[in-house]
């Protein structure tokens, strides 16, 4: 059987060794989903670290009253840049583009995504968008100072480089749409035999829900930002009150996308957690269908809550109450997930490995973030807390404490599969301690600051806020120490660490049935799926 022998040979080579082109071209021209996933991962991590550094500078400015290291205009530009980098370049594409690209075909037993060339094009668009965003810093009249929300009419009036910044967001949005489209088609068309929709790992389900949001919400942001650019270039008037336009309409259109977008950011993280928890509890997930459907429910209800960003923008009382009610409604599916995770842990044989530790931090931090979200979602308290540090703290608890920590968990969980090498687990625990403590010192203080009335986006503050600002800044140093330890540990591990086995965590999903790192076409033979995704052998069967 020469054919079989040839295949056996191919399996000995990982996808790292099979190059279509020499050198760097082998990466930027490759349509292999694994290479594209890793390119996304590296680009994103770079932008993440840059944005972390900017956050560090902002915190440093808040160390003392008055001008510490920068003036007001620089501070405005920095928080805009921090937001744009973190949101559009890191956390929206984050998990789907990096881990989704790498793991989705592996998890459903396919050789690649449905449209590999389109996938590469998404990555190029991502890079082009990133380049435009960066070029907006150094060309023309200087970096945008509007905040990442580009609110009209200020964004129409300011002399800074808003046009380029919104064009960057437009291109990045297009990249995100194409990724979502690709994943949806992949899941509909390329599942392995026996892999029904309800046998897909929950990470795939979360990508499915995310894909729909990407497709159905992003175009509205695209057209809205395009209109801002057009307004600045030719002056069509749709958001400009001088010409009869309505700036509040801009807010509506912006949040119709950007609220669902926070679910683009957090749903895939919830999916990864739903994979990690059964793996390290040694048992199947509790309430598989409830978790899968709650992803879809979040995606759906998430469309109807955008108005809660605009409680103080002068919208009518009727719509404020409706939006407040719907906001409470969207908390239910999130809570369903949390309860199911806890029920999975109950009586499981828990193995406290680094990915699990990073992963379950999500449950604590996201619960704090989610519950404070309800405080903001109710009308009376929001009037008091709107545009204060309370909102900043809430958002960072949900996004960094939620998605960010799961992103780190995924690096520790799937990293050995992607690079074939293991990091130092001891150092990973130490990094976690710094991260977790630093995070809470930094952001929990912001809840108190916000409650006391510290407004967001100010480079200066009143004397009574001084102590809390100093504590928060010290927290940011601890947090950044943790981030550095973690990334250095991972980098060294994935370069020179000991070889990782095929299945270091006793995972049950399909990606653990291929070598680490996987061969070019993933599977020698397309697997036939017989069990539910988190089938842990006899024990589970006996219970049936």
């Amino acid at each position: 059987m020469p054919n079989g022998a040839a295949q056996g040979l191919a399996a000995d080579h990982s996808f790292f060794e099979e190059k279509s082109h020499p050198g760097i071209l082998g990466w930027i021209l490759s349509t292999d989903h694994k290479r594209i996933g890793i390119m996304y991962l590296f680009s994103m991590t770079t932008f993440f670290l840059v944005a972390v550094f900017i956050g560090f500078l902002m915190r440093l400015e808040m160390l003392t009253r008055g001008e510490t290291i920068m003036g007001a205009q620089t501070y405005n530009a920095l928080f805009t840049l921090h937001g744009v980098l973190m949101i559009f370049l890191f956390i929206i594409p984050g998990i789907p583009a990096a881990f989704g690209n790498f793991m989705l075909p592996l998890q459903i037993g396919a050789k690649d995504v449905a449209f590999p060339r389109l996938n590469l094009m998404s990555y190029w668009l991502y890079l082009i968008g990133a380049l435009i965003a960066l070029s907006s810093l150094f060309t023309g009249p200087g970096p945008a100072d509007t905040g990442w929300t580009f609110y009209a009419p200020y964004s129409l009036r300011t002399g800074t480089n808003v046009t380029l910044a919104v064009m960057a967001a437009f291109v990045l949005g297009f990249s995100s749409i194409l990724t979502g489209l690709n994943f949806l088609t992949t899941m509909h068309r390329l599942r392995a035999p026996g892999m029904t929709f309800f046998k897909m790992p929950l990470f795939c389900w979360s990508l499915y829900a995310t894909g729909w949001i990407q497709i159905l919400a992003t175009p509205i942001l695209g057209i809205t930002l395009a209109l801002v650019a057009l307004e600045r270039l030719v002056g069509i008037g749709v958001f400009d009150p001088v010409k009869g336009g309505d700036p509040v309409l801009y807010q509506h259109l912006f949040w119709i996308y950007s609220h669902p977008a926070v679910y683009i950011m957090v749903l895939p993280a919830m999916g990864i957690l739903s994979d990690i928890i059964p793996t390290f509890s040694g048992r199947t997930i509790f309430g598989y269908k409830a978790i899968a459907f709650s992803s879809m429910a979040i995606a759906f209800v998430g469309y109807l809550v955008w108005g809660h960003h605009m409680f103080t923008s002068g919208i009518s009382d009727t719509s404020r109450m409706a939006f407040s009610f719907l906001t409470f409604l969207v908390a239910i599916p999130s809570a369903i997930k949390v309860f199911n995770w806890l029920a999975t842990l109950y009586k499981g044989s828990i193995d406290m490995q680094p990915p699990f530790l990073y992963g379950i931090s999500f449950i604590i931090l996201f619960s704090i973030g989610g519950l404070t979200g309800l405080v903001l979602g109710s009308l009376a308290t929001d009037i008091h807390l709107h545009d204060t540090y309370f909102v900043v703290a809430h958002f960072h608890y949900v996004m960094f404490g939620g998605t960010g920590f799961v992103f780190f968990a995924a690096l520790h969980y799937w990293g050995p599969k992607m690079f074939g090498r293991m990091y130092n687990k001891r150092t990973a625990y130490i990094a976690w301690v710094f991260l977790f403590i630093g995070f809470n010192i930094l952001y929990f203080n912001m809840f108190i600051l916000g409650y006391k009335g510290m407004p967001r986006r100010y480079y200066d503050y009143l004397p009574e806020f001084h102590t809390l600002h100093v504590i928060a800044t010290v927290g940011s140093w601890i947090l950044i120490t943790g981030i550095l330890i973690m990334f250095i540990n991972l980098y060294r591990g994935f370069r020179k660490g000991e070889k990782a086995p095929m299945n270091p965590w006793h995972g049950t999903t399909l990606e653990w049935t291929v070598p680490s790192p996987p061969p070019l076409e993933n599977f020698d033979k397309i697997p036939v799926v017989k069990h539910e995704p988190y089938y842990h052998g006899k024990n589970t069967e006996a219970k049936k």
Partner: protein
Amino acid sequence: MNQAAELTVGRHYDPIGARLGMWLFLFTELLLFGGMFLLYAIYLHRYPQEFHYGSSQLNQFVGAMNTIILLTSSLSMVLAVASLQRHKRNLAILFLTVTFFLGAAFLVNKYFEWGHKISHGIYPGSPELMQQPKGEILFYGLYYTMTGLHGLHVVVGMVIMLFLIYFLIKKSDKVLNLTPHHLQNLIGKKLLLSDEKGQTIWKSERIVREMQGLEVVVKGVVSEEQMRFNEVKLENSGLYWHLVDIIWIFLFPLFYLISM
């Protein structure tokens, strides 16, 4: 369904997947224009009189002409798809060309229409327009943005058609592969190509090396595989073109007919 298994043979062919992807893309296009239609609805509600006045200043005849042109182009697009499905390649190319020129005619009309308005000093940000009531500024702002965005889609559609015409004209090579299994012990022998009557067409040199594989290339033929790939591409482009058409069907009454 076991679609994954198909991946193992050569190029991945999944017409249903391709169509699914296209429909998802059309959703995004609908939402892109949806944002604009929403703005239109709100400002029409706020400034009904100015919108009616603005609409009465547009040339209904040119608008109607363009509607007829685009509807006809959708027909010729459908005919192109149907022709290719019946393996009438040349007919498909002809209908595609017709569609292309109808698209061009639409743009020419649009050019004169815009040019006429601009020559009267009516365009976004013009000093003349700024003197008008707010509702009219918005009407023309939306008019230029929406028809402009639509025009851009027409241009993209026409570029796609050029590519399709190229794909359809291009003759691919039919390739026949022989594996080492068929080629054992050929050293010292010759290869011969003959027609069905046994007449020799071509004879090779004596083979001196062990052969790993043999490829037979036939120039100037469109392979069955190529035909199927083109069919999917054409069908998807057709879907896109119909979307462009449908959007115009809504733009036409909203801008040209509300004052009648």
